[in-house]
């Protein structure tokens, strides 16, 4: 796709509906800036992703097949969309994400802002629930029913600990949710 104004390749593609009339805009970087058309939100990360894929060469195929245990998203899917599948993706792809985030975030590597008031216990609980759920799945797959029953009890116990009913609901949901397959 070429720029509407010159012959350079267009990097900004926009379909706007104005007063019921659909208008398509394709602009190169220079003309987009000149027209004041903002780059799409995910442009920077997508650009970084492309650079990343190119620099990785052949070895990227193996790591891009790896999928997130929480939602089943693969790294190559993230590369296509620029968005992750679930919060656990940050753990699953930490190694590949870290350099990308660092570049997208002007060199920053760690959060320095506010921490949720209850972060301490909610984080622990999330981690424990995740671990127990994983073990429970394994036990069920291996047909170790006694072990599975014991794990279920422990999960139930954790569910009862949180302070707010809303959290209980979310935590239970988490424990019950089967991993998504593609």
């Amino acid at each position, binding site marked *: 796709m070429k720029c509407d104004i010159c012959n350079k390749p267009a990097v900004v593609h926009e379909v706007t509906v104005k007063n019921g009339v659909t208008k398509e805009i394709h602009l190169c970087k220079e003309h987009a800036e000149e027209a004041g058309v*903002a780059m799409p939100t*995910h442009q920077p990360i997508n650009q970084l992703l492309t650079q990343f894929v190119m620099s990785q060469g052949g070895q990227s195929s193996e790591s891009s097949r790896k999928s997130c245990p929480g939602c089943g998203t693969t790294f190559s899917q993230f590369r296509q969309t620029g*968005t992750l599948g679930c919060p656990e993706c940050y753990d699953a792809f930490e190694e590949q994400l870290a350099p990308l985030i660092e570049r997208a*975030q002007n*060199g920053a590597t760690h959060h320095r*802002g506010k921490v949720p008031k209850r972060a301490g216990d909610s984080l622990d609980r999330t981690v424990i629930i995740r671990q127990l759920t994983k073990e429970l799945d394994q036990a069920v797959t291996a047909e170790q029913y006694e072990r599975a029953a014991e794990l279920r009890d422990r999960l139930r116990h954790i569910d009862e600990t949180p302070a707010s009913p809303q959290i209980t609901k*979310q935590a239970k949901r988490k424990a019950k949710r089967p991993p998504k397959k593609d």
Partner: protein
Amino acid sequence: MEFASKGSWLSEGGPEADVVMSCRVRAARNLVGFPFVARASDAERHELVHIAKQVVLDSELGQEMIWVDLAKATSRDRQLLVERHLISRHLAEADMPRAVAVSEDETLSIMINEEDHLRMQLIAPGFRLAELVEQIEKVDETLEQKTDFAFSSRWGYLTACPTNVGTGIRLSVMMHLPALKLTNEIERVRRAAKDLHLAVRGYYGEGSESAGDFYQISNQVTLGQSESELLEEFVQVVLPRVIDYEHQSRKILVERNTNLLDDRVHRALAVLRSARLLGAEEAMKHLSRVRLGIHLRRLQDVQLDVINRLLLQIQPGHLQLHIGADLSPDRLREARANVVRKALR
């Protein structure tokens, strides 16, 4: 949905209002235990709307919040919410279960199932970023009492796109920079913004054109800097610099280009007072120049609040609300010219 055609806060002034139209603070949050919106099933998205509704309405904020189910709202109402900067165009046009909670004074909105599960936003006229940052913290803490947000000690608040991770906080300032535009100095702002890792966008944010010399400046970096450091950078460095550029350009116009300035502002007012058909962009452009003329005391018989209100009233959704019907593009242009002529008579 009750949307009076009363001017919302947008018609008010506020500190540094000659250059700073409005400030906005947005925080992106996701609920623990769910995939991000794009990855969630429709059932999960429904559940997210349901949970968010409980969380918001049961919280201390609940009393003053109006809940709008966007999947059921008419496209005209959604357009109105976009024009009032209460929801994003992305959320208005999405095809999935989604909602927004709006405070009665229209300063706080909480979008559900935008790119992230929750996007809470505060907006106010003039240069009031510090107040807004303080308020958004309170909103965040209030909601946090009712739910768990996805957070990691390394990455901070976890968001669907890694460009928002960390604080999840986006500060945006809508600036009116007509003199920089007239003197072709707007590139200076763009370059300065780029050096500071800021994004410069149009009137409606992402993917919109900068109609009428209104520019939205926002931070691009959300990681590695605390909320107060980010705020300080905006309040101490970024905004004063841009405000100063614009003031310098205005001074040059008044001192050295009086004729050009007077021609532009009087011509703009004449068009607005006599046009029978007005396109949105054309109207924005002329209103912008009249606004400049008022601030530089080149125009005496026009009130600033009238212009500020018109900037909102000329938008398609507001015109349709005013007329009470969906309008074709031609009828919109006619209605817009009528509204403007009447207000400036």
